[in-house]
Structure formats: structure tokens, C-alpha cells
């Protein structure tokens, strides 16, 4: 009797663990968007007057890069320009030595995940596995791919280049992640948000 009872508890316990919840299934696309901004606290933004922006979006996929200019990309670049102008910066051509440059990149990382054959020999009792027989799965593994994309927008300081390392310092950057990042309808909201939460950029 005791043995039966403990089996019952065990079975119920496994049942409880297996009912996993998805607490974010009710989020709207807009609600999944996450805006992350970083900035150089030592930077004095008022020293910058002019800016320029890349003419296409850098697409980085698993470390390999190319450029693209889809309608979505164009929308993003145009919205960045209008936000920068609103903050008081003057838009100039890349040739006329802007104080800061804006890069926009679409970054995708693909991960390969592995799962071992998920069937425990204790699932299902159809073949009468009670006699101590389980299923003899060979140790096969299954693979599946997941990929994650995000926007990365950075501001480079062209005015104070590091002449020793030959680098331009990133004085501000923003990541946009979430479900709606590839959808043109969210572009204005996304770009306005990353600048909106970075009030220190304002110079006018």
C-alpha cells in the first residue's frame, strides 16, 4: 500500500512539473519590444554639432557582414535622421567631416541546439513495459536551430579619434529587440523610443 501511494505521489509530481507555463504569450507585438541604450558617461555631447549616417544598413549574420537597403532599412535611417535633427544636430554629408557618425546594423545570431532523444522509456505503457523493459533508443541526438535578430544603432565620435589605436569611440548605442523589429509599422515607435530615453543627447 505504501509503495503504491509513493508511486502516486511521484506520478502526480512529474505531472505538475511538466505543465509548463508561457507567461508572455499574451504580450502584444509592441509590448515585446525592448529598447536598451548605453552611453559614455564621460562624453560631453554639446561638443558635437554635426552628424552623418551610413547610407545603408550593415547586416551582420553570424559574424559575416554585408549591407542592405530595404524599405524597412530606409525607414529606420530616415527616422534616425529626423530624431537627431530634433535633438539639435545638423545633418551633413559624410564627406564634410561630421562630428559624430551613426551606424545602423541588423544583427542575427544563429544557434545550433541539441536535444537528446526525448522519449523516456517510461512514457506510455502500451507495449506493457511493466516487466522491466523500456525502449532501447540508440543515443541519437536531434538538432534544431534558433536565431535571434536585433537592431544595433551606434554613435561614433569622429571629433576625438583615438590616434594611437586608430579607433573611433562609441559614445552611445542602442539595441532594439523583440518580435516587431522587422515590421515597418513599428519603425517610428522604435526609433523614437531609443532617442526618447536618451535625453542626455539633446544639445539644443
Amino acid at each position, binding site marked *: 500500500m505504501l509503495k503504491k501511494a509513493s508511486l502516486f505521489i511521484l506520478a502526480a509530481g512529474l505531472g505538475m512539473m511538466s505543465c509548463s507555463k508561457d507567461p508572455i504569450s499574451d*504580450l502584444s507585438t509592441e509590448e*515585446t519590444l525592448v529598447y536598451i541604450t548605453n552611453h559614455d558617461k564621460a562624453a560631453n555631447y554639446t561638443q558635437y554639432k554635426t552628424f552623418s549616417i551610413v547610407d545603408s544598413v550593415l547586416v551582420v549574420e553570424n559574424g559575416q557582414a554585408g549591407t542592405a537597403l530595404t524599405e524597412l532599412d530606409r525607414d529606420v535611417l530616415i527616422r534616425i535622421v529626423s530624431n537627431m535633427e530634433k535633438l539639435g544636430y545638423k545633418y551633413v554629408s559624410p564627406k564634410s567631416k561630421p562630428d559624430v557618425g551613426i551606424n545602423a546594423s541588423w544583427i542575427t545570431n544563429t544557434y545550433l541546439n541539441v536535444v537528446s532523444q526525448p522519449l523516456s522509456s517510461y512514457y506510455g505503457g502500451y507495449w506493457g513495459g511493466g516487466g522491466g523493459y523500456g525502449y532501447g533508443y540508440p543515443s541519437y541526438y536531434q538538432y534544431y536551430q534558433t536565431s535571434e535578430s536585433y537592431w544595433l544603432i551606434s554613435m561614433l565620435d569622429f571629433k576625438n579619434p583615438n590616434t594611437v589605436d586608430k579607433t573611433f569611440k562609441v559614445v552611445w548605442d542602442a539595441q532594439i529587440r523583440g518580435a516587431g523589429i522587422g515590421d515597418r509599422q513599428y519603425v517610428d515607435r522604435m526609433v523614437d523610443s531609443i532617442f526618447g530615453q536618451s535625453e542626455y543627447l539633446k544639445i539644443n
Partner: protein
Amino acid sequence: MGALQAHAQEEAPKLYTLPSAYERYTHYLATARLMGAMPLGSFADNYIDKSSFQNYSISLEWVFRNSPISVGGELGSYYFEKRIPRALYDGADETISAVQTRTISQIPIEVFGNYHFLGKNATVQPYVQVSGGVSILDYTLYYGNLASQDQKVKPKYGVGLGSKFLFKRDGSLGVDVRVKYNGVSYKHEYIDKGISSVNGSIGLFYRWW
């Protein structure tokens, strides 16, 4: 001679005054509970203050004969969740704007001891309970649809006050009502002083021997 006398004194068994089997034997008692739980203390202040009704447990106990004590094991499933509308979170260098979904799920595994104030056949059987064990817990904090997760096994304890109500005297089925304080020692991000909560449960029990 003495044996003969004893035999002579023996009467026909009084079936209806015989103590119940539940009094004569150590027996088993299984309870399934549904719980409402309310976060308390700094866990409520800093992480989730929303009560939850997605909590369950099952327990099995041994009720000792000639003793007001029973001991057993309880296995549960607790879940707390809170959604926070879009807000800005300032870190050391970064600022995050996101809709937060805060969750804690726990599978507590405990042993407990009950002290019963009245007999095993009273229709109302109030008891006090102390319990201790571990909680297999999962802290998942979502920023939008990005998750930051922490999974740990941590010690937990509880003290409770409850009562069993038998549907009929000497019966094997009844209702169990319990109020219990639970404390889990855990520290991560928003949770700095453990997870404390009080839960009220209603359960159904079955006893047998």
C-alpha cells in the same frame, strides 16, 4: 484459576463501542490541496505583490495510533506572476525600456509533522504543522520577450494552522483547510531577503489503513 476468571468476565464484543480502526491502527492519509497564496515582506515589495491561485499540492501522511502526531511528505507547485507596463530601468551604464513580466515558479518538497488537538474520530480535527524541505525554484524575469532565468534548489520551511473536517464520523473522506506561512531562502536580482508568502488552502483527504 485466574485465567478462568478472566474468561468468565469476557463479554460478547460490543461492536458499536469498539474504538474505530483509525484509532486502533496507524493509518495513511492522502490530501490534495488547492491554494491561494499571497506574497509577503520584501518579496512582495520588490518583486511580486500579486496573489496567485495557481498553487497545488499533494501530501501523504502517517497518522500514528495512540499519539496526536502525524508525519508526512508534501509535494507542491507554486506560481507567482506579475506584469509591469512599459517602464525605464536604469542600470550602471544602460537604460532598458521594456514591459516586465516577473515570475517565480516553485516545486517545494517537504516533510512535515502535525500535532492534532482532538481525537482521530472527531469530525473536526484542528492541528498545527511545521515543515521543512527544499524548493526547486525558477526565477524568470522577462523584458519583453527576452528572458533572464535563474534556477536553484533552496531550503524552505513552513508553519501552518489547519483543521480536518470528516464528512462523517469514522469515515474515510474529508475536507482539509489550512493557513500556512512559507519561507524560502533565496537571493537573486530583485529578491534580496528570500521568498515569503502565506497561503490558504482547501483540500480533500482520504484515509485508509
